[in-house]
């Protein structure tokens, strides 16, 4: 996993609530057996006027000029500003994969759906929950200021604005540690393999039926 320390980046606003993972990456692209390559189809149905199918040459597509990420002023954005309940719906990890592949490293919103929120941390993508009033004010400033940037500092747990405002955010210590170091949590969990084995043996002894396969 990519380390996340400080990201200083251009902000793109996506001003709608309840953005679901079907919108982030539509189902036809989930047929891939790879982890990479979803960026060109991020927000596909909103981003293009023609219908997206796997295997298209992105250069042949017709971008929707009204969609925010197609506006030249947001080209190269690495921070997505979003509304409440971002990432609701399906558990597809293809959603953070697509955001990451497109170039985003952080999403700022008043709230996130649980499974999406969880999936982000496995992919070096930082979901930051900020109060609604702060998000509102950031939307106004992004709208008013071309090239508006923010600095996200994970170690300090701060989002810093160009005019010196600092907004703290909360994060679980374990997740923070994994993100800062770019650690693979499977390796960390396997350090406790003896605990898992002991737990499993006790459970199997007490409730053996939980461990059966099918019988005719």
């Amino acid at each position, binding site marked *: 996993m990519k380390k996340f320390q400080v990201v200083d980046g251009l902000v793109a606003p996506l001003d709608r609530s309840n953005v679901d993972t079907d919108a982030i990456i539509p189902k036809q692209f989930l047929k891939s*057996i790879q*982890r990479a390559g979803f960026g060109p189809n991020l927000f596909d149905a909103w981003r293009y006027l023609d*219908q997206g199918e796997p295997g298209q040459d992105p250069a042949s597509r017709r971008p929707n000029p009204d969609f925010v990420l197609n506006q030249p002023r947001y080209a190269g954005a690495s921070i997505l500003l979003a509304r409440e309940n971002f990432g609701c719906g399906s558990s597809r*990890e293809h959603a953070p994969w697509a955001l990451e592949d497109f170039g985003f490293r952080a999403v700022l919103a008043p709230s996130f759906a*649980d*499974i999406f929120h969880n999936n982000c941390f496995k992919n070096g993508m930082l979901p930051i929950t900020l109060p609604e009033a702060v998000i509102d004010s950031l939307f106004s400033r992004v709208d008013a200021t071309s090239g508006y940037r923010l600095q996200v500092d994970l170690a300090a747990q701060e989002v810093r604005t160009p005019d010196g405002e600092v907004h703290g955010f909360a994060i679980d210590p374990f997740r923070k540690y994994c993100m800062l170091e770019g650690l693979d*949590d499977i390796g960390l*969990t396997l350090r406790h393999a003896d605990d898992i084995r002991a737990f499993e043996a006790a459970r199997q002894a007490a*409730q053996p039926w*939980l461990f059966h396969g099918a019988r005719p």
Partner: protein
Amino acid sequence: MSAQTLYDKLWQSHVVRSETDGTALLYIDRHLVHEVTSPQAFEGLRLHNRPLWRTGSILATADHNVPTRPVKEIADPVSRLQVTTLDQNCAANGITEFAMGDPRQGIVHVIGPEQGATLPGMTVVCGDSHTSTHGAFAALAMGIGTSEVEHVMATQCLISKKAKAMLVRVEGDLRPSVTAKDVALAVIGHIGTAGGTGYAIEFAGSAIRSLSMEGRMTLCNMAIEAGARNGMVAADETTFAYLKGRPYAPRDTEWQAALAVWNTLHSDVGAVFDREVEIDAAGIEPLVTWGTSPEMVASVSGRVPDPAQEADPVRRQGIEKALAYMGLQANTPITDIRIDKVFIGSCTNSRIEDLRAAADVVRGRRIAGNIKLALVVPGSGLVKSQAEREGLHQVFLDAGFEWRNPGCSMCLGMNDDRLSPGERCASTSNRNFEGRQGAGGRTHLVSPQMAAAAALAGHFVDIRSL
């Protein structure tokens, strides 16, 4: 010991170790796997040369991509590769898979319970948000992402943090023609699509106790549409009767020992929840979603809302966007909405009871002339053969429905069952998001009975008036 919630009991009995920040390693009893969210996980294990911890915990099936017409192999090469990749990964690792063509193949959330592979007191995970379905068996069941699929395969554990507990109590008797689907939509309409975020929801009350296991599964299935990763119902005689004799279920003396444990799987009297919601069962009507989020729901006797009546600007904008996408005018009576296609299926409503209920509405009648396609897609091969033994397929075929093979089908259209742009569908599935059933498609979520009645009339009808 102080009074515990069902969630407390399920959580505590699976903690392998906990960290000071509340993060816990949670032991996973059952891992359900399908073709869409697993290939990258298997690949990750291979790259790190990591073995699977306990292959016996895994039950796999192909469901999202499978065609519902009888074919020898999948025509779309991309879909076919994903399904054959699952077959190869299962074969290489000795995992039990109900592959295409197996009479037990079907939607992963239908086959787990059907096999008795979902049991009370278990933790159940799957790379699919509708894993909440299995909570109907007093199990702690949750959807996970692909990295977590890999983590569970490698360690038999999930890194997790305890959620808050919510009790949704539905007391009283449901009115005739009101189903578990309507209860689910009523709950989501009441607490909102993010109302359950950060919570595990327990559904309780006399109306829930009266539901069949199929009904409880429908309800827990849609907990995720209220934002909750888990939905659950206490175990009782209905649960035990459903499980007895199923292939993975315990037998003989083990059955008795299991019952002793399962009888404790309920919230204790006096258990404290972080939030409690009361819903009057008698007040629930047959419901229809009108928008692009499951919380956008109205009684079949109601009207499409008017954004001008909404004071909150963000919500107003949400309604306007939804109505524009759905091609609906404010204040239109729900029963005036004409539809093009009907889909009866999905992990929400494709079990035998759902098909029986829809068939009862359809029997001896014909679908309306404006219906381009009416699909019935059983949840599994076993549901399909049961329905055929009961003659339900003939009821649907005589009425003009198509009777298909099991799979996720038009719930999300990863196979070739889809809506075309602008088409409007009465669907028994779980999500009415933009493009969910096909790019530009318009989805109205309803119960199987309501979908069947809409197919006959060509528009929504109040089934209480039939």
